[in-house]
């Protein structure tokens, strides 16, 4: 397959959640000396974007979204493994976590994969992460953005706690903050003083890239 076909096939493997084929595409690209990051961006990531759109419009059900996301995760893992030197293409570092008391992470997982496919370095520290740990890790990794996900109306307040704690510690200006999750809204983000709110993974990338330019 030539480059254009590889990119198209890469796109389809995500839409069809075909992991085996996705891996073949990567192998072939390596053989042909095609830039994997380009393949990721133009092929796989576009497939990811289409899947997101299909899900939003109701044309894809949740399991299909997840299965596609899993293939995307695998693809990113492989590409990252093979392009260790490509780190200078990294646009910035994001630390992401599901807040304390909350175990939901499906959406967060999709955000992580999508961000990575756009060349953002993402450190996912998991679920049920207390604010203190989030800050500790943010400092340790020296990230640019801290992103939090909350899926219960009852755990949403952790996002406010993060803002308040960063301010109290006098390090709020060191970071940009992003919030997301089903009960989260842009109004909430404004109220607590977060830098950005995103409704879905694609918007998250858009906002993150904007924040990283600042």
């Amino acid at each position, binding site marked *: 397959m030539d480059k254009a076909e590889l990119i198209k096939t890469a796109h389809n493997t995500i839409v069809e959640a075909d992991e085996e084929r996705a891996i073949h595409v990567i192998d072939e690209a390596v053989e042909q000396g095609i830039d994997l990051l380009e393949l990721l961006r133009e092929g796989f990531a576009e497939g990811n974007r289409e899947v997101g759109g299909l899900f939003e419009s109701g044309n894809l059900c949740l399991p299909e979204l997840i299965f596609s996301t899993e293939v995307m995760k695998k693809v990113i893992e492989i590409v990252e493994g093979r392009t260790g030197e490509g780190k200078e293409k990294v646009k910035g570092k994001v630390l992401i976590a599901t807040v304390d008391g909350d175990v939901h992470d499906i959406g967060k997982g999709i955000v992580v994969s999508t961000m990575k496919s756009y060349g953002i370095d993402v450190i996912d520290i998991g679920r049920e992460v207390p604010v203190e740990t989030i800050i500790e890790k943010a400092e340790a990794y020296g990230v640019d953005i801290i992103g939090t996900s909350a899926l*219960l109306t009852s755990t949403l307040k952790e996002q406010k706690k993060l803002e308040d704690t960063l301010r109290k510690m006098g390090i709020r200006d060191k970071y940009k903050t992003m919030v997301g999750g089903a009960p989260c809204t842009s109004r909430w983000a404004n109220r607590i003083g977060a830098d950005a709110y995103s409704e879905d993974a694609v918007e998250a990338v858009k906002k993150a890239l904007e924040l990283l330019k600042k």
Partner: protein
Amino acid sequence: MIIKSGKCVGGGKCEECGKCNLYNTTTRKKKLTYLPEGFAPDVEVTGEPDQKRYGIAFDIGTTTVVGMLWNLNNNTLVDMIAKTNPQSQFGADVISRITYSMESTKHQKTMQDKIIGCFNEMIREFDDQYQISGQEIRKATVVGNTTMGHLFLGIDASSLARAPFDPAYTGPVQKRAAELDIKIDPDAEVYLLPNIAGHVGSDIVGVLLASGIKKQPGLQLAIDVGTNGEIVLARDGRMLTCSTAAGPAFEGARIYQGMRAARGSIERVRIENGEVVIEVIEDCEPVGICGSGLIDAVAQMLDAGIINFKGNIISAEDASSKGLHPELVARLRKGDNGNEFVLVWKSRSEDIVINQKDIREVQLAKGAIYGGITILMQCMGVDSSMLEKILLAGAFGSYISKKSALRIGLLPMIDEGKIEHIGNAAGVGACMALLSKQEREEAVKQSVEVEHVELALHPNFEREYLYAMYFPKENLKQA
């Protein structure tokens, strides 16, 4: 189209409205309250023989509260009332209500006052109708899910809203009516049955008593199909339970034209020979669709090839090329929320439809329940082929068509004859605890014996939940 506030928006014309969530659902619930065969009350009647003695059993459902009045002189059910839970204005689900009550002590008090107020309204109605004075009501028992129990007692429920979802207290709770401001004999004992664990509350303990599932032979499954979707799997005395947070889709919420089961809601749907045949509660002009109607609609649409196993509603073009009946093709169109299928054509108001988003809501709800069943069976090391019985409890559970429930994959595939409706089992359990000291002791015993599985923290749940969102494929006859 779901009315969220506690105010009547139909101009008070209940007969015509049909969408009201204030509608009294008493009649439907009444048929579902019957004590199990062989149950024998054992509570002693003390005091003067001609003294009137009554008792009330309450079942605090997230969506509907039921009060059952018993004449304790002869242990007969006098009457019962069902009312919409007035906390509904603060949220349809337990998490929203906990969040609201966490905001301040005032809010927490409001939540408690709402339930107590609801109880007192029922008491007043019983008093008026049966010429009773509240003082003559000498005992009360209460069941409800864990959150309802906490809010009723005015206890901080915030731990239930975050992992690992622990209650703030364990065991049964006994209070004097005066302590809770319940307008019956001030010294009357108000007994709240114990919760099991996590979100699986005293209502499920009620189901255990009413179903007697612990002593039933072989592998049995009991499901309280409601907002919280609790499940009990029992085998030769060993019991496992979980709460699936199925969501209010089965009660009509988040469905485009969904409504509670009330006058004007479509409760049965059949698609045959290109025709859509419906049954409406109280036989009037349909205004929406309730849970049982929704399940029927989805099952029929699956059989007719209108939805595929992934839950996608077919487009009119594809339906036409697949050779679906032209009258069914005519009902397919594109709407604001994806493809939709018209159930009822209307001339002067909006057509009644099922749209793509509605199907997704059903998939989420039934996926949660089926996923929960799968996990419990995995934990017990059994599979559905070994099931002797499936018991469907709860008001919704009682009206759902067994055939439709199987068709959409809400339940594991078993012989229809093995499914039994057991009525409002939680409420019946509360009645049994009112009338029998032995049952009360049994309730406490079993609440501790049941093993709780916290699905949110189980490693396999997410995967099973996702798979369960698909509909069962079936070898269908072509429409």
